[in-house]
């Protein structure tokens, strides 16, 4: 009973927050951030624990695996974009991923963050479900990883376009690679506002980054 109501509540909140975002379109209002806040507030109002919430929530988590598999579809649909810009895209996402992992790790160590936090920060530049899987594999906390992914997405989408403009980063390939490699799905949504080509490149960049991060993150911890 509690499971069904938690599941239903999550869906209702999500639908409402989606509407809110569609109306105002401000990056801080991305549905993942607002929905999370609203649900945490309601849970604490009713003195419900996360464990009780997950009786219903786990059904959605089960769908994350197949959702990652589904990412093959946009990659396939954009195969001609991928082929045409193969080298620029491979270069930007490969080095972007290395720089993302490296700078995250370095900065986190610099601030003496707890080990589990460091390991949850490492996969922050890739799409949530993949980041959570990577965090699990390298000894981080999947939930924390999902939160950092959200932060990377929101801030990338918020400041990306201004930074690009200031630094004369203005080709579709530059903008698409930057947003996709740093801010995954949320960045790709922003890229769509800037153009179809930017969005196609961003979604390919996001998928390539996820592939590279899955390959590189575990390697890094061997060092």
């Amino acid at each position: 009973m509690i499971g069904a109501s938690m599941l239903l509540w999550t869906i209702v909140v999500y639908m409402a927050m989606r509407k809110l975002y569609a109306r105002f379109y401000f990056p801080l209002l991305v549905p993942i951030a607002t929905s999370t806040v609203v649900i945490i507030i309601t849970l604490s109002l009713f003195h419900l624990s996360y464990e009780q919430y997950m009786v219903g929530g786990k059904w959605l988590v089960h769908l994350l695996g197949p959702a990652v598999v589904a990412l093959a579809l946009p990659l396939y649909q954009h195969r001609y974009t991928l082929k045409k810009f193969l080298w620029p895209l491979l270069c930007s996402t490969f080095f972007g991923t290395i720089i993302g992992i490296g700078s995250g790790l370095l900065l986190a160590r610099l601030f003496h963050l707890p080990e589990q936090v460091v390991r949850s920060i490492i996969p922050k530049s890739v799409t949530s479900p993949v980041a959570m899987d990577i965090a699990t594999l390298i000894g981080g906390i999947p939930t924390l990883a999902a939160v950092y992914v959200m932060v990377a997405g929101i801030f990338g989408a918020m400041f990306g376009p201004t930074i690009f403009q200031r630094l004369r980063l203005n080709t579709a390939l530059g903008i698409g690679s930057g947003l996709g490699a740093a801010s995954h799905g949320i960045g790709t949504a922003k890229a769509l506002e800037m153009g179809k080509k930017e969005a196609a490149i961003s979604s390919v960049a996001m998928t390539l980054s996820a592939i590279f991060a899955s390959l590189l993150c575990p390697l890094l911890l061997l060092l």
Partner: protein
Amino acid sequence: MGIVIIQIGVLYTLYVVGSFIQQLLHIPIPGSMIGMLLLFLLLMTGIVKEEWISCGANMLLSHLTLLFIPATVGVMDYVELFSGKGIWSIFVVIVSTMIVMLFAGFIGQWAQTREQKRMHEVKGA
């Protein structure tokens, strides 16, 4: 709706196969990612037709946010990590994100102009 559920079932099967391969070979790559690469190969070789999975895949991808809400809600159990020093982790993530965006953006832009120049030279010669 029925077709969507069947197609999600197909994607779920690929996920299970991917996880199985991961455990079998002891490779530290997420099973979901192996499943994705598997599906990409199947699509490219034409063994799996786009229509067989597109309804289910689009359904999952357009509501990806809904699927990871339960995960982010989990942060309520880690509030103490964000009080005090932990708050710096947010700062770390933001700075690192900006660095990635600039590097990936400039590398992409540079590689593209370089390639275009080369193509131009080949044509000119």
